[in-house]
């Protein structure tokens, strides 16, 4: 294909740029609660995030990447002029990356997912035609954007209410905490493993039956629970701390649980957001490598996921550290007993969506979860104005992503 190598290089550069931005920006939401609650040092948070973002991206990021690669735009319709698809995807990557940069600088809420989906739809309509877009898929995706914060909020509400009932409301909360927190650790490990395995690790080449998935998940959950129990019994409980604030020691038990949920959140984020960088890249690569032939069925090259994962890790290790520190300082209200409920609910929702191949906003799911805990009267003060702004930001992000993509598309068409 003419310019094939240049396209590949550009795809790599833009894709890595986007992945870097995703790592720098969003990872803070997964790890900042742990850093803010002094459960993890920044170094450990970054290390954990790196490991789990990478795993999430590689092990569970395949479905969403497929959706972004070929689920939004009907690639076979473009078969007559494959160059258009390549240029369009390049434009989409560039548009989403640039918008991410601008919005982060200005402090506006930005969802990487909304940016890339808006960009792809944008160039699809302008460059290829209305009919090229898979409107039913887009409808499903849009619906998932509404459902995911609601689901996450409901789960977080129920989780926190269970914590109140089992632990916080009891006369001896510390004893109850030591007894029940290991069960929550089991739950976290079990659910995360189960959802990852049930949807199949087929993009990694592993076929697991449903029964095996349940079995392995239970084992992973049990192992985590035993490790967690060991850590819980090792924590020094200072009775003096309880005089200041009766629940200080209870929170220390929850802190162990919060490490597990932080890992889950990083894994979930990697699984859903890697596609935002790598999906367009995969589309370009498969078109160029097949010499201009496009097929929606062609398998996803797994090294593409690896590349995205590496990009995210670089982003989080460079700029991400500072964002984690800043955010961690400001969210001290999310004590471990709340933080874990929010993170587990959000992580579960996101991994569930990843399994279905639906690109959703991890930030919105986390905000939904926070609202859920707030409804259970668990948080001292939530600014609903900011919540509204965050949720409304997609109204701005979608068209801007689309317009930027169209602009870059015409520029690239002019160059090539």
């Amino acid at each position, binding site marked *: 294909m003419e310019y094939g190598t240049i396209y590949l290089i550009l795809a790599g550069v833009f894709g890595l740029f986007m992945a870097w931005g995703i790592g720098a920006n969003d990872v803070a939401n997964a790890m900042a609660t742990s850093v803010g609650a002094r459960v993890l040092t920044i170094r450990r948070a970054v290390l954990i995030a790196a490991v789990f973002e990478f795993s999430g991206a590689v092990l569970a990021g395949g479905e969403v990447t497929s959706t972004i690669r070929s689920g939004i735009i009907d690639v076979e319709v473009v078969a007559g002029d494959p160059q258009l698809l390549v240029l369009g995807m390049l434009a989409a990557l560039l548009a989403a990356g640039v918008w991410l940069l601008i919005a982060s600088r200005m*402090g506006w809420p930005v969802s990487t997912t909304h940016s890339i989906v808006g960009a792809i739809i944008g160039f699809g309509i302008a460059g290829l035609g209305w009919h090229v877009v898979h409107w039913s898929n887009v409808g499903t995706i849009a619906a998932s954007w509404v459902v995911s914060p609601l689901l996450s909020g409901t789960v977080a509400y129920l989780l926190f209410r269970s914590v109140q009932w089992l632990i916080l*409301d009891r006369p001896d909360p510390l004893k109850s905490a030591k007894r029940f927190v290991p069960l929550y650790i089991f739950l976290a490990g079990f659910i995360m493993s189960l959802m990852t395995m049930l949807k199949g690790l087929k993009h990694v080449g592993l076929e697991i039956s449903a029964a095996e998935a349940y079995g392995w998940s239970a084992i992973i959950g049990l192992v985590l629970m035993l490790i967690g129990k060991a850590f819980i019994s090792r924590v020094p409980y200072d009775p003096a701390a309880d005089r200041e604030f009766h*629940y200080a020691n209870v929170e220390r038990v929850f802190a162990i649980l919060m490490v597990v949920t932080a890992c889950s959140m990083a894994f979930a984020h990697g699984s859903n957001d890697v596609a935002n960088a790598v999906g367009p890249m995969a589309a370009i690569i498969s078109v160029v490598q097949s010499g201009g032939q496009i097929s929606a069925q062609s398998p996803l090259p797994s090294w593409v996921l690896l590349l995205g994962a590496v990009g995210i890790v670089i982003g989080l290790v460079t700029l991400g550290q500072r964002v984690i520190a800043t*955010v961690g300082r*400001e969210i001290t209200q999310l004590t471990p007993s709340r933080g874990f409920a929010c993170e587990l609910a959000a992580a579960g929702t996101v991994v569930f969506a990843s399994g279905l191949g639906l690109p959703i906003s991890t930030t919105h799911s986390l905000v939904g979860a926070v609202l859920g805990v707030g409804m259970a009267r668990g*948080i*001292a003060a939530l600014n609903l104005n900011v919540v509204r702004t965050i949720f409304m930001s997609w109204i701005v992000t979608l068209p801007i992503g689309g317009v930027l993509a169209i602009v870059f598309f015409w520029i690239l068409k002019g160059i090539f």
Partner: protein
Amino acid sequence: MKSYFAAIFRGSPMKPLQEHMEKVLECASELLPLFKAVGRRDYEAVAQIQQRIAQLEDEADSLKTDLRLQLPNTLLLPVDRRDLLELLRVQDNVANKAKDIAGLILGRQMEIPASMQEAFDAYAERCIDAVRHAQRAVQEMDELVETGFRGAEVELVHNILRDLGAVEKDTDHMQIKLRAALRSLESQLPPVDVMFLYKIIEWTGDLADLAERIGSRLQLMLAK
């Protein structure tokens, strides 16, 4: 780089509320050395203590203003915003009343009849005790947020409030006895002084009443 996610968390209003109540208790507690100084006829000390009370009441006022500014109605709080502001207002009234009592005593260079001195000191002690109980209840606010206003913590607060009720009832009885004692001395004292003495007894009792009202506000919050 501003983080939008972090911006959804506002500072907790509970800590400032607790700090305000601590300041109010500190202010009201100064009345005890004040009454002792009156018993000693040491009006210089009375003036000094009145100054301290006025200053503490000022500090409480600025804490109150800060907290009010911190509570726009776009916040999602675990309690009704109006309940919180009402609680703050009643707390503030305690400090105001303490300042009024101190001011009146100083202004009229009041004397307490020697035969009433001991009963009066005990009465004042009990009224401040009521305020102390109220402060202990308010102190549990951040624990209440921790448990989401449920469970064993609510039981604990109810117990404190029940004790508060008992203390307030006690002060009512003591007030009746004090007024009776004053009535028997009425004819021997200047009538204007006697009227103002009745006023001081009434205002001191108001401290306990206000403390009980703080308790009621808290109970309302727990009941919702």
